[in-house]
């Protein structure tokens, strides 16, 4: 494309990435009156947002980084505020429910490993405290009558919940459109250059001049971050998902690997494979996922599968989010995580505010990518 035909844009803040992380952050910025430009790719992109499992999940998160547990719990706690805000702004109900969630174990070994992991998680110094319960088969069965005999026990946490993530995605986009965010799909980014009071962003579509830039481009952050003195060493982690036809409601709590959506379909997920950018659905993996789901809930066996797919999680070296402001190019931020649904409330209600202020608080220091330099030096 020639420079002549290219467009020129000016704005206060550019958010790069129109997925759940980018749109939740853009929503937060626009709610506070910022003028926001949001760049996105086209119809076919890696889009972790389309592959997510829609959990707002607390238990089991933060082993190795207690600050992540604190951050996650805070987001779960303000999720109903986000849901209400979206309902007020768009009339879209994102079906946020927080009935508490279960991790079901299918063998004594799994049960023991789960209990140990929870114990180690909660024994960490600086660990935020919240309730959880270890349940045997009978107590799990009392609370979840549909479980099968193979379920040995479970861990239940009342903070866990879920949403309709597709509706969340639409609600965020509808809300930012109403708040006049300038959304630019099909607009890949080639370069970002610091330029006296801000940044020049270039792509085949043209050029934009902004005062601040937020990198929320998922796996694309790895390439974009160094352009503004940031570091985001993220890599893809493949997850395969199965979804079934709609069924009348039978499962009133989310499991970490099985949930029934408010629309009736059952989602089965949470495989993890380190295979680069491969997104092929493989029968042995989805077969094992299906088998485990049917062992957990035998009544699922007769349900027809409507679709399977795989998506790429955005994984940092230690699996935790990266929130950082560039030291060499102040005004450039990076936001990346693999829990775009759980953390959406924080991104809209907390993070956006700090980005507008221009400083990330001490509570987010643990998420700086400087932690990767330290560990590689050690």
């Amino acid at each position, binding site marked *: 494309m020639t420079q002549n035909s290219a467009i020129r844009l000016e704005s206060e803040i550019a958010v790069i990435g129109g997925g759940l992380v980018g749109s939740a952050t853009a929503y937060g910025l626009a709610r506070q009156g910022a003028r926001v430009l949001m760049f*996105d790719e*086209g*119809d*076919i992109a890696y889009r972790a*947002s*389309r592959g997510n499992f829609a959990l707002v999940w607390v238990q089991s998160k933060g082993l190795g980084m207690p600050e992540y547990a604190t951050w996650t719990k805070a987001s779960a706690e303000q999720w109903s505020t986000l849901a209400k805000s979206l309902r007020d702004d768009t009339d879209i109900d994102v079906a946020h429910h927080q009935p508490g969630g279960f991790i079901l174990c299918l063998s004594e070994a*799994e049960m023991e490993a789960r209990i140990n992991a929870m114990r180690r998680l909660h024994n960490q110094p600086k660990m935020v405290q919240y309730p959880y319960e270890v349940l045997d088969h009978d107590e799990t069965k009392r609370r979840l009558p549909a479980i099968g005999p193979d379920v040995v026990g479970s861990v239940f946490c009342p903070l866990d919940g879920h949403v309709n993530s*597709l509706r969340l*995605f*639409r609600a965020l*986009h*509808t809300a930012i*459109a109403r708040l006049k965010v300038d*959304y*630019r*799909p*099909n607009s890949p980014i080639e370069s970002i250059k610091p330029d006296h009071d801000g940044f020049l962003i270039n792509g085949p579509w043209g050029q934009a001049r902004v005062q601040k830039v937020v990198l929320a481009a998922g796996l694309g952050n790895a390439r974009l971050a160094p352009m503004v003195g940031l570091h985001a060493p993220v890599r893809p982690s493949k997850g*395969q998902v*199965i979804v*079934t*036809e709609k069924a009348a409601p039978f499962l009133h709590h989310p499991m970490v690997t099985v949930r029934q959506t408010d*629309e009736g379909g059952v989602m*089965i997920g*949470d*495989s*993890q*494979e380190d295979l680069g950018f491969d997104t*092929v*659905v*493989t*029968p*042995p*993996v*989805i*077969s*094992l*996922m*299906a*088998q*485990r*789901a*049917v062992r957990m809930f035998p009544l*699922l*066996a*007769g*349900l*027809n*599968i*409507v*679709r*399977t*797919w795989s998506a790429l999680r955005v994984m940092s070296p230690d699996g935790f989010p990266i929130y950082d402001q560039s030291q060499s190019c102040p005004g450039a931020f990076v936001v990346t995580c693999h829990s775009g649904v759980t953390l959406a409330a924080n991104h809209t209600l907390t993070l956006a505010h700090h980005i507008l202020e221009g400083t990330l608080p001490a509570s987010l220091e643990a998420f700086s990518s400087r932690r990767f330099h330290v560990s590689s030096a050690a």
Partner: protein
Amino acid sequence: MKTIKDVAALSECYDLLVIGAGPAGMAAAATGAEQGLSTLLIDENPAPGGQIYRGITTTPVAAKETLGADYWRGTDLVRDLTASEATYAPETTVWSVGPAAEGPSDPGRMEVGVSVGGAARLIQARQVIAATGALERPFPIPGWTLPGVMTAGGAQIALKTSGLVPDGRVVVAGSGPLLYLLTAQLRAAGAKISVMLDTTPHENWGRAIRYASDFLRSPYLGKGLKLLLGAHRGMRIVRGITAIEADGDSRVRSVRFRHGSKEEELPCDVLLLHQGVVPNINLANAVGCALDWDDDQLTWVPQTDEWYETSVKGFTIAGDGAGIGGAESAALRGRLAALGAGHRLGRLSAKDRDQMAAPVRTELMRAGRGRRFLDVLYRPAKAFRVPKADDTIVCRCEEVTAGKLRETVALGVAGPNQMKSFLRCGMGPCQGRLCGLTVTELIADTRGVSPNEVGGYRLRPPIKPITLGELAALPKTPAAIKAVER
């Protein structure tokens, strides 16, 4: 021919696996078996024939003239198939085709997920020919989801397989040779059709005329004239229809339509819709075959070479699934596809293959003459492809309307896959078969760009329903255990 109705009785691996027992599939399987290839023909129906020759071995409609000579031509294909060494698996579905992960790896070897009577299994094939045929183009008008509204092809299947004819006040609507054929068949069977609403745009005649000379020398001519002349007698035909709406509460009660400046409403018990057929590309799409938008046929067509091999090695598409050509052309293309596969499997030299193919290609040329005239003449009107009325349902499964789609394009949603995330369109059990083309064209129209730029739904297996229980019973691998049990 050996018939198998038990998933355990299938072999581990076939040289050639053919999916679909319509004209292309029957011809491909017979031709493959003739070369000595171990050949499996899989079909989801209880008897061979596909849609065009549906029920040809079982139909109770004995009077030959009711279904017509073209229908009975399918008998020859069934005879050749029956006489061959191919294995035939009826009432069997193929829900996935992917590269074979393990075992001997010749290029193009594939793993095929099949399901019979509630039991699934993965088998292998060295070459796959998908003869998945065509389906009727979506016809999104207000009220098309009401009981009593059906595709014309659906009514034709009820006639062929069960000797059923629509009863009461029957209205047929749409455009294209199959609509006229079905109308003639139904009337020959004694159905009373109160009116035919012809939606063929007047201006198509002007565009089609330059292809008419080919058509005049084509085999279509005789058939076409007979149908058109037959159609005239004793039935009201309203041409130049620009809008149709089905009304009713629990079922269709009336049909409203516009022609010129006139609007009319007629009571109606059965409304049969048809505006041409399009390739059934769901399997090809899920396998990952490159597809192109065909602006004449207004549909996605898989890229294929002269032996109908797609961009995915070893995966061939024969018949209408690779572009609409009709039953005769489909059978010929099935034979060519099987010759191509035979050569790739080392069974035929290039010379033998070409020699055997030469007369088939000559026939194919003849059979295709006049097709272009029909394509241009019966290119459906935009009003029936991109619904104007905002409350028209586009995605029948998730009940997503045209208005909602347009509203969402305005948010910046550029293509059908993002649209799926936003509105769930295409996410129901039909997997976009009944809305894919409409959604692509509607987005293209709203954005003012070409359908090719907009793209289509990206599909994933299973492309036919299997249960979680069936999937759960398939073999696991150590890598899968590592990926799932953490």
